[in-house]
């Protein structure tokens, strides 16, 4: 039996980090992990409204890397393991992540950037007023565009096409929204963009790239969007519009206004169900969802290429901005 007691005195490397606008108070016994996570930390410049503790014990005798993920949760606790050497416990009420990892995993920056940090924000986020919403987010001259839609609707390919049409990229799949005194802010985590195999038809640059098995078992291209597509990344923005994406058979594109009731229902249905032990988190989340639903919202139905849809959305956003100033 191995027994790990998370004792602050035994975790000498401590620092304050920031992910998606949430402060992360890291303590670990492995200096290289602290340095690597500092490199992934994204400071927003503002004081983080709330934060969480991350206590990680690195087992330097173990060289097994991250294995298959396994998740379970009950009441206020969620557990995640990635092979037997890497286990994590999320205490949502106390906003604490405790973990034991192998040295190989501690050194694996992709694991932390693409898996552990997004998962942590997804699990602990609701307790910090940070709502993970299944939508992409792009930014144009200071204004954020949230793009929701069911899996397969084309959010990621459209995010890439929009980023190559003048928008700045924030996120393509999960966006973290926090409620501040003067409105909501959308954050990305700089995770790689995940594109399904048919994206190669729209983006020549993917030819010759390798497909990978993503965490949900799908075969996909997982690309660093700035490196692969040469586009600009924004870490956060203020959302101004919500678009719900739908594919259609007929040629062309149509924008149909959505009521705030429809928008609230849509966003509510896309968030995770939380247990009764987390009523405070549920209440905070409802407030943020209310703010999202109060944005101007449209259904956007289109057929054709992501480049065509991006052109339509760019024109739409420019028109909307002009209407604000008229």
């Amino acid at each position, binding site marked *: 039996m191995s027994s*790990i007691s998370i004792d602050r005195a035994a975790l000498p490397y401590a620092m304050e980090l920031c992910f998606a606008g949430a402060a992360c108070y890291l303590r670990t016994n492995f200096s290289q992990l602290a340095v690597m996570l500092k490199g992934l930390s994204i400071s927003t410049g503002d004081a983080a409204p709330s934060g969480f503790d991350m206590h990680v014990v690195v087992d330097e005798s173990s060289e097994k890397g991250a294995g298959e993920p396994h998740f379970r949760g009950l009441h206020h606790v969620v*557990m995640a393991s990635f092979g037997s050497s890497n286990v994590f416990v999320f205490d949502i009420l106390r906003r*604490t992540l405790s973990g034991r990892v192998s040295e190989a995993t501690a050194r694996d920056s992709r694991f932390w950037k693409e898996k552990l940090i997004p998962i942590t924000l997804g699990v602990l986020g609701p307790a910090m007023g940070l709502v993970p919403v299944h939508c992409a987010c792009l930014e144009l001259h200071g204004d954020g565009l949230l793009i929701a839609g069911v899996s397969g609707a084309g959010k990621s390919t459209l995010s890439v096409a929009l980023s190559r049409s003048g928008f700045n990229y924030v996120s393509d799949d999960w966006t973290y929204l926090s409620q501040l005194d003067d409105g909501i802010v959308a954050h990305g985590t700089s995770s790689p963009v995940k594109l399904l195999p048919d994206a190669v038809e729209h983006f020549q640059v993917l030819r010759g790239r390798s497909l990978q098995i993503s965490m949900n078992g799908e075969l996909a291209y997982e690309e660093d969007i700035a490196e692969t597509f040469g586009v600009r990344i924004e870490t956060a923005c203020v959302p101004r519009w919500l678009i719900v994406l739908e594919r259609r058979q007929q040629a062309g594109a149509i924008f149909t206004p959505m009521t705030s*009731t429809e928008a609230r229902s849509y966003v509510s249905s896309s968030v995770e*169900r939380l247990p009764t032990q987390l009523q405070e988190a549920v209440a905070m989340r409802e407030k943020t969802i209310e703010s999202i639903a109060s944005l101007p919202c449209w259904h956007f139905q289109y057929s054709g290429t992501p480049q065509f849809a991006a052109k339509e959305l760019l024109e739409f956003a420019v028109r909307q901005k002009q209407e604000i100033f008229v």
Partner: protein
Amino acid sequence: MTEERRWHPDLLRRFASTPYVFGTRDCPNLPFVESNDLAIALSVSRSNIFRRQNNWGHAMLCKLIRDISAPVDGSEITLISNGALRVLFQGRGTILIHDRERSELLGFIAPGIRAQDLVSSLIPALLDE
């Protein structure tokens, strides 16, 4: 679009139903047990392993899920303690959590772990501080 709420699938198995319930929350010397497995519910409710653990003045809540889809991959036991929370992993599939402040014992039990093993060795190992 309707107002009806559609939830994601319960991938964490947070909302697994627990039809077997024994005990009351008012009796400090007995556990209040909820499980989806009759053998687990009976074994835990009849055991006396919680008698010395009580510090809340009411029963320890035990919610234990027999997890038939959990991986069965090893017998190595890992214990992680942080503050009031102590978690035991046996392999990846069996996970037991003790929240000392909330007087709760929660867990997922992998196939192949007998109810008897749970009360005779795993829960005592978790509670033994």
